[in-house]
């Protein structure tokens, strides 16, 4: 079937079965590879996107459920040369090892900071409860988000 979805402010028409997880539409139809597959069951956060202001694992959402909603992916934040403050903070803190978890974590942090521009450390840790990092970069990622908060990353 044909569906229309709005991603990073642009409307796209895609041909996919209604129950197709949003993740595969983003990656394979729209070629937005920054949203990453990690588990397919919403447990690791690698595929987090922001839908109407809320961080949601895109592997666990059928594409038909997001028609008419506003979807933001990591590509919608900033780009090299004009990084979003959260992305800049990840660079400044060198907050990555393999980096595979980073885009999902940045999207979770984006939704958090948009709702709560001055989160406590406990708020940040709680918001990231569904994002896993296997390289053990937690310490630096928390520093990066603290830095972004200090520098006013919330829009």
């Amino acid at each position, binding site marked *: 079937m044909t569906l229309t979805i709005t991603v990073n402010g642009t409307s796209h028409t895609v041909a*996919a*079965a209604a129950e*197709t*997880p949003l993740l*595969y539409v983003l*990656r*394979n139809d729209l*070629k*937005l*590879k*920054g*949203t*990453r*597959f*990690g*588990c*397919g*069951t919403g*447990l*690791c956060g*690698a595929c987090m996107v922001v839908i109407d202001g809320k961080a949601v694992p895109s592997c666990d959402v059928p594409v038909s459920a997001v028609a008419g909603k506003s979807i933001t*992916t*990591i*590509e919608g*934040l*900033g*780009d*090299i040369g004009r*990084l979003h403050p959260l*992305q800049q903070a*990840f*660079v400044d803190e*060198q907050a*990555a*090892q*393999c*980096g*595979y*978890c*980073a*885009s999902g974590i*940045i999207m979770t942090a984006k939704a958090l900071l948009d709702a709560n521009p001055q989160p406590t450390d406990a708020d*940040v*840790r*709680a918001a*990231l*409860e569904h*994002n*896993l*990092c*296997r*390289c*053990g*970069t*937690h*310490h*630096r*990622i*928390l520093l990066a988000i603290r830095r972004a908060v200090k520098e006013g990353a919330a829009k």
Partner: protein
Amino acid sequence: MSASTTMPRKLPGSLETNRRLDRWLRLDRDGTVTIFPGKVEIGQGILTALVQMVAEELDIAPERVRLAPADTSYSPDEGMTSGSRSIQDSGIALRYVAAEVRDLLLQRAAAKLGSSLEQLTVKDGTIAARSGGSVTYWELASADLLAREATAEVAPKTPDQHALVGAEVRRLDIPAKITGKPSYVQDLDFPGMLHGRIARPPGPGARLAAFDAAEVEAMPGVTAVVRDGVFIGVIAEREEQAIRAQRRIARSAQWEERPTLPVNSDPRYLLDLKSEDEVISEKNDAAATAATRLEAEYSRPHIAHASLAPSCAVAQFQDGKYTVWTHSQGIFPLRRDLAKVLGSAESDIVVIHAEGAGCYGHNGADDVALDAALLARAVPGRAVRVQWMREDEFAWEPYGSPMVVKMSAALDAKGNIASWTHDVWSHGHSTRPGVKGGANLLAAWHLEKPLAAARPGNPPLPGGGSHRNAIPLYEFPSQRITNHLIREAPLRTSALRSLGAHVNVFAIESFMDELAVAANADPVEFRLRHLKDPRARAVIETVAAKAGWKPREAGNGTRGRGLGFARYKNLGCYVAVIVDIEVGNEVRVRRAFAAVDAGQAINPNGLLNQTEGGIIQTVSWTLKERIGFDRERVTTRTWDDYPILTFGEAPEIDVTLINRPELPPLGAGEGAQGPTGAAIANAIYNALGVRLRDMPFTRDRLISALA
């Protein structure tokens, strides 16, 4: 003729086996330099460090250095990216290559500018003569310049001349990754690419009783079902269609399962199996007298690499030749095994590296490369991307081996260690592909005409595998260290970050604390009195000072702190770790301090990042992780079954780097594993007065220890 009778000079690092300059480096006309390392990025930041080393020797800006992806059609064969050896192997080779290339260019410039070598200076690739006149590297370069063997006779810079090496150069790959650019093998996309999934048996001993391929072939989007023995793969136009087909097969195929796995997942099953026993270190001092004797037994279960991205590969088969994109740690060894299974010549297979998520050793990367090739063979001309699901990775990756260590020691009347024994039982820690006598790729064993796996084993000492770090760095009058290798493994095991060092150091450093208690000594002082190596002493003293260690400070029943130390492989970096823990319903590591000495730090921030990550990952292994199985199958399938450390549980970290620019760089990717595990056990004892010896230190283990 006369030259051929002399032995070629031994060259540094991987130059020894890949001796031509142009195999490593190329000067491009656009003012850039392309390097061709055979080592690959696995999230450790190695490529940035290699760029720094090359830019340093060539006197060019790091932005001028480009990296060619490792590719069997042109890269030097550097074996595996493993064992924290990339700086020593690839970095040192590139350092000598770059120094020699700079020298060749200077010689050309001297002739061209009519100057002596001494009168030339280089700035960002432009050579200037004191008498006037200048020329760039790229104006001087010609195709023949580097078409020669390296001599390694041009001395690289001395540390006092370094400007880039040792500097805080930012990782080159981070901006692309955090802006969502295609960065991983998972992100490859080719026109007309198909999607594959593999429907594995439910367990390692299962036989296929009935399977209706036609039903699956009729599903929407399905292009082909490939069945060969118990290997069943499906190819579809769209990714979600391939997943649906995989799930259908999981439900509809009928399997006869067999009880091939141990009765329970306690690693002590190892003690009942046949082992090959080898004494790897022995010394006897008859004068040493024993007053007090202690014994203890330590263990770790099977644990998983649990890479955040399940393994993935893309393959294409056309005109009898394969191209395979993979996140393998060794493209040449993988190609050797692919050739055996596919029945092709190695020259008909091109293997190209593309980054995956952090792997921490031998995960499913190589296996999925064969899966993709087997599926691609069924659809010539079309690229096929095979992505393992999370369940596939947990059920089929080669695990970190279970291990049991038995220690005994005697203290003399002064409370010094008079004698020491260490016995370690483990499966082999290497079943990587590319070795003789078999094919070490999962699907190879499932085919109708299966290939046997090569005999599992260990990397040899001094690095070692299950016996890695079994020989203590401490100096005891008498000691006997015995390795009990159990080759037959009910579940495949292979290299997981630090190999046996995690458990051997956990045992040694836990036991050192137990002996310190028996000797009524402070853990820091007790270690130092048995340790001569000044660098070892320095990391312990540094971390103790940094953490504000107070000798013989008791924990308070809830909080405690503990120390662990090791020199990785007894020849790599030195690491000492102190952790502060708090025990509530479970053990929580609140804070970790570490000191690390890896000789010359090429990229200090990268070294700190590796050490911080090693500590946090080991907190997770030590407190939480265990692969579960019943008699027929692995029962760990999802993150719910295999919890790892979360952001809520992650400790604060403070790592102190002891940089020694005058000393050779030492491998530093795996140094924190052993010390961290022991530091946690020692902190628990400090807090509660109970000794946990069997990992993971879960709530249940804590409760039964306190009971």
